[in-house]
């Protein structure tokens, strides 16, 4: 089980990077550059709240998993 936890950690890091690309280039920037007021607020939240949360949060979680922080023997 520990091996699976560590291997999946790589997936979470990749997912964090992929989600960041999606949040910035597909969601955030287009919304931020749109003329709509609602889109502007939505873009700000995506870029400055959700994206850092995913990059730092899921990325750190993945890193911790890779280095075995969540392995059973360490609890």
């Amino acid at each position, binding site marked *: 089980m520990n091996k699976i936890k560590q291997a999946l950690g790589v997936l*979470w890091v990749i997912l964090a990077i992929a989600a960041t690309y999606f949040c910035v280039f597909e969601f955030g920037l287009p919304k931020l550059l749109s003329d709509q*007021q609602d889109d502007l607020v939505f873009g700000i939240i995506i870029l400055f*709240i*959700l994206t850092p949360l995913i990059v730092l949060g899921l990325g750190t*979680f993945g890193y911790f998993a890779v280095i075995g922080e969540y392995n059973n023997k360490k609890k």
Partner: protein
Amino acid sequence: MGKTSTKGIWKVISASSMGTMIEWYDFYIFGSLAVVISTKFFPSDNPTAAFLSTLATFAAGFVVRPFGALFFGRLGDIIGRKYTFMATLLLMGGSTFLIGCIPSYETIGFLAPLLVLILRLLQGLALGGEYGGAATYVAEHAPVGQKGYWTSWIQTTATVGLFISLMVILATKSVLSSESFDSWGWRVPFWVSIVMVGISYLIRKNMDESPVFAKAKKEGTTSTNPLKESFGNRYNLKFVLLALFGATMGQGVVWYTGQFYAMSFMKTVMNIDSSQVDSLLGIALLLGTPFFIVFGWLSDKVGRKYIMMLGMLLAILFYRPIYKMMYNTTDVNYKTEIVDATTQSVEKLKNNDIITSISKTYTDGTTYVEKKTDFANKKKSQSSVIININSGDEWTLIFLVFIQVLFVTMVYGPIAAFLVEMFPTKIRYTSMSLPYHVGNGIFGGLLPAISTYFVTHAKAAGKSDFYLDGLWYPIIIASICFVIGMVYVDNKNKINHL
């Protein structure tokens, strides 16, 4: 660490649950009355006011709640649970009451939307601090092996708060004419809050501090810097992240889908009459609420993890079939029209706008009214459809929403116990509040906006079932959370600190 009698814990539950329920009530009436509020404070033809309106909706729901969790969580870990969640109660109640007192935009201009925004932000801050305090307070009173059951009472409060907000609004509408409600009656649900808050404050005031926290305080083992110990300490941080990505993130999207997305879907996609939606949602919530207690109790017997994960798995598997069935109940393409009953009327208003109404009745009792307004001076038109469903379809929808509420109760019923058991007394309030409000406020709260994005893209691409594409967001988030929860979360919770 059982230390409170059954009679004593009922007092704790009553005091905590009532206050938390009122806070949810306060938070929801703003959303439920958003349409009338926008006409009073945020005129749509004024872009700055419209911008403030969006901020009031988004900022309070998403951004401010985690800050409230940090601010009040820190206070709760330093000065105590009781005084902190009394402060959040007063802050929330006072803000809600004052929103109901603000003169309209017509009377005081820009000050009106600005005051509403400030009070709405204070509401978000208070909500961010309340939940963690109430859950921690109850868990620290609860006997060993029964924390899931007792904290599940706190878990009912969000749904009960939503239910009561719908009922108070429906009751106010029923005793007032629509003109009176639109003129001043919409303020009544805000004013009602201050009475409930007053009663709840008096009850909470006479409660004792949590015995676990009081003991820690006496022994001098409380934290002096809960923020640093919660998030600067690697050992604790990894559990904060696990709580977020392995539990609250999925719980947040399941919770929002089962209640708010379902409501919005019925009103805006299926075009069902708003009052009919409120009523059937109210019934589904009423039927589903006891299951928070059932699953909280069950989590004491079989563990928190598998109940929460099963709720997420069922949501992932059944959301699309459920919403497909919901959509089909009002799809008039599958109904037989009574041709003789169809009426059409044209009305020309004083400003030369022309309103064309077409009313259709179907053999199963469904009625369909389409109104098209041609604006004379703007050279454009606007259409709206309102469908009144028959009693059979109403019960079908109640059942389908009830199923979604069941998923909510599975993921949400045991989660308070799951979170409080994860962290030590001295930083519990701070550590559990943040992942909860990030999961709910950010991942859950963004659901309407992101789902709308998916639906719009699917519609533009010409997909026939475009209305189901909004579900990809909760399905993807819940799937990631399900895998993380299944692999990394321990069902026996070896890190139980209570």
